């Protein structure tokens, strides 16, 4: 074990901020243009030399772990390596210095890129039309469920319920509820949708069924066509959560599986870096019958000229200002162009190969519910750790000491002490073997080492309950609390 994360004492920038003094000669009214009554009295922002600001953030960065540092097998998050050329492209003036309200004649390249990206996503998703407007995966779901609502309303129907399996990502029920739907959780059977239970759950009140395939256990839902039939026969729509698309490109598509609506997570499958929590992008694709409901404006092409069309009376309107997360779209476009059709197919093949290899190598050391072929990810149970008074979280924290990011844990909810592993296609066999060695070695260690892990990271196990109790979300709150405790 050789990993040691850097540890720096880095005070908060505001911490040593002296009471600010106005620079001599500065006039906050700007020569009387601003009346005194609208001006602020104080502003606490430190004046720090560039040299010290860079030191501050570079030292902080050394206390952070990204894909570029090492394996990041966070299940359902597809943390693959992101090619650097894509970051370079979005820094060009011709990409970065464009205003969204510019005349279309001055942004023809940008419009063409987005139009082509829509077409490429149509091909990958097996759908007829795509909107790039949603800013993230959950935002794509939210958009998709609005499309569901608009579709049924256009048919003169009020349907009140969205059904989803109990293995669904948490964003699915949250998105459906935000659009005003009641959410019905469907218990799984052998890790997959219980078709009989679905049949009895579906009614004239069912607006849509949300599913990701492969599902969050990494299992391919073989009955997907039958499931689609049940929903469509009842007049409901089928929604595809694209978080797990990395497993199936060129092998099948949501459209081929009869899904009506799909969102794509560009920051997962299409290699745009996740930036510590965002930005992402969550384009939504639909079958022909739903195209007229897509958000405005639509990008249209005629004789090689691209323009914006907002005259769509049945559109759901807008879900975000302007075009969406354009800089993310450009990165994804560049990635798809570099991979090409064949490249994307081998992305999925290698993602699935890596995942199954890792699963086979680890399954005897843990427990593998539903032993079968997996797609891009698999879920182990850490139940056996309990023998030594340990839990999955202790194992996960100990992995950090070996220089690996931890897998997703305690999800999906139907697996006891779940450990959800997604290695992605960009990791070499050597890296996977090192990860296996680390896992096996941890299981042999003194349980106390795990219980008190991590040891080699910038800080030790964190008191999360204290954070929720203290509710300190800013330096000013911290200072207020310090003052009141002194008083």
């Amino acid at each position, binding site marked *: 074990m050789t990993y040691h994360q850097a540890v720096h004492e880095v005070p908060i*920038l505001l911490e040593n901020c002296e009471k600010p003094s106005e*620079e001599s000669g*500065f006039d906050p009214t*700007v020569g009387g243009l601003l*009346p005194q009554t609208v001006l602020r009295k104080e*502003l606490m922002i430190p*004046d720090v030399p560039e040299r010290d600001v860079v030191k*501050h953030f570079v030292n*902080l*960065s050394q206390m952070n*772990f*990204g894909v*570029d*540092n090492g394996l990041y097998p966070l299940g359902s998050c597809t943390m693959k390596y992101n090619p650097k050329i894509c970051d370079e492209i979005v820094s*060009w003036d*011709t990409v970065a210095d464009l*205003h*969204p309200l510019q005349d279309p004649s*001055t942004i023809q390249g940008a419009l063409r*890129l987005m139009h082509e990206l829509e077409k490429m996503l149509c091909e990958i998703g097996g759908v007829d039309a795509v909107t790039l407007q949603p800013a993230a*995966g959950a935002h794509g779901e939210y958009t998709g469920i609005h499309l569901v609502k608009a579709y049924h309303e256009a048919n003169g129907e009020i349907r009140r319920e969205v059904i989803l399996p109990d293995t669904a990502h*948490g964003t699915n029920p949250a998105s459906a509820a*935000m*659009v*005003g739907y009641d*959410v019905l959780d469907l218990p799984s059977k052998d890790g997959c949708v219980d078709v009989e239970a679905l049949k009895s759950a579906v009614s004239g009140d069912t607006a849509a069924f949300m599913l990701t395939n492969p599902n969050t256990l990494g299992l391919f839902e073989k009955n997907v066509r039958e499931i689609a039939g049940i929903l469509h026969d009842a007049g409901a729509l089928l929604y595809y959560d694209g978080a797990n698309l990395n497993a199936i490109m060129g*092998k*099948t*598509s949501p459209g*081929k*599986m009869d899904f009506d609506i799909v969102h794509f997570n560009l920051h997962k499958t299409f290699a745009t*870096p996740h*930036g*510590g*929590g965002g930005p992402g992008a969550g384009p939504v694709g639909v079958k022909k019958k739903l195209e007229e409901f897509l958000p405005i404006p639509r990008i249209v092409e005629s004789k090689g000229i691209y323009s914006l069309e907002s005259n769509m009376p049945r559109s759901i*309107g*807008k879900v*975000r*200002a*302007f075009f969406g997360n*354009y800089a*993310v779209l450009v990165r994804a476009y560049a990635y798809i162009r*570099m*991979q090409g059709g064949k*490249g994307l197919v081998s992305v999925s093949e290698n993602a*699935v*190969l890596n995942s199954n290899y890792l699963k086979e190598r680890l399954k005897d050391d843990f427990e593998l519910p539903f032993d079968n072929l997996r*797609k891009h990810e698999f879920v182990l149970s850490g139940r056996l750790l309990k023998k030594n008074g340990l839990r999955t979280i202790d194992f996960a924290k100990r992995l950090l000491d070996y220089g690996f990011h931890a897998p997703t844990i305690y999800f999906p909810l139907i697996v006891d002490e779940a450990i959800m592993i997604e290695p992605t296609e960009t990791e070499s*066999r050597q890296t996977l073997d090192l990860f296996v060695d680390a896992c096996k070695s941890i299981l042999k260690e003194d349980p106390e080492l795990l219980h008190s892990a*991590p040891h080699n990271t910038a*800080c030790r*196990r*964190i*008191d*999360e309950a204290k954070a929720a109790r*203290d*509710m300190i*979300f*800013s*330096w000013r709150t911290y200072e207020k609390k310090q003052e009141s405790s002194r008083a």
Partner: protein
Amino acid sequence: MALSACSLEMLQYLKLKSVSELFVDIPKEVRIDGLRLPDGLSELELKRDLEALMSSNIPASSQPTFLGAGVYHHFIPAAVRAIVSRSEFLTSYTPYQPEISQGMLQSLFEYQSFMAELTGMDVVNSSMYDSSTALGEAVLMSHRISRGSRFLVSRATSPEKKLVAKTYARGADIAIDEVNYDPTTGLVDLSDLKVKMKDDVAGFYFENPNFFGPIESQAEEIRAVVGSKTLVAGVNPMSLALLRPPGEMGADIVIGDAQVFGTPMSLGGPMIGIFGCKSEHVRKMPGRLIGMTTDIEGRRAYCMTLQTREQHIRRSKATSNICTNEALLALAAAAYLALVGRNGLRKIAAKNVENMSSLSKRINGTKGFRAPHFKSAHFNEFVVSSDTDPEKIHRELLARGVHGGLVLDRMFPELKHASLYATTEMHTKADHDKLVTALGAIR
């Protein structure tokens, strides 16, 4: 597919002969045979191809552009890009494992701290997608706080934002009504607000400066009319370098876009939605919050907190579905503010006010144009009204190598022949000269 030696070994380990055996669980009736997309490009080919494609765009850096309306062209110090390009930040996921993610967590805490300082609010979350979705979420949160079936929005709000707010409101069966602005000052029409502020109203949203540029001077009066209902204020955070913060005026929720702090315009995305509130409302708030705590050795540390509001715990009962946000841009904003510092920020803001004033005076002195249309103090944006059709002016300016302001006639028919112009510290005197000369040449 050509398999590497390592892949072959892995297949052998799995006792499989070919990769296709990994996909036998996909039923035949749903299989497809590859993708009809062109072959891949090398990095060099891609770069050449995209350079050619992007060369048909005309960026604000090569043509004076006077557009604002929520997205602004500001200077970005080189050190901001150096900081956000650090791989450890750029390629990390949401900090689910806080012990190995302290760098991002502290940076986000610093962002929350700066935004709390600027807005005068106790709590600012670690970001939303943009201000339009932040407004949508604020409508929903106002409903959680104050109930009611309607929400009021000042008419002097960006049409883009209003459209997004309507989408969010529709999901919760909330109707959105507009409150008029005073045709002379452009500020909130208090008497109209009084009339519309009925019992079934959850809250009211207004901006400062508003969509047309005027700085709102009636904050206390607005607060009084809104009473116990939820008051949502929209800000351009750059203006808060000089202006009174909404927290001081009693706003319950504050939203805005921090794109002005270190993020390029990039055709309007990604942006970074600011979302702040009074601490009494924090459990009704959407989005991720970073909290200060300690590790088991008692050292200061940070983690995501109050996650029981969020979708991965609360599922359909969550305050929002938001998961991925705009964390990297929050880092950029924190780095930007630290780099320009208090006095630097105030100078930049003052330069914006100066530029607005001098440009509007010069336009006003041009035959056939009047600026600013509204009689109020402005920050960096203002309405120009004209004798000629603004669409015609727009086309003629473009032909002369200037991108004029946003034509308002279709969105605000009551403002006959009007456009919205923005100017920032990026514009030189030569840029202003070019615009004014071009306007003067239009017949």
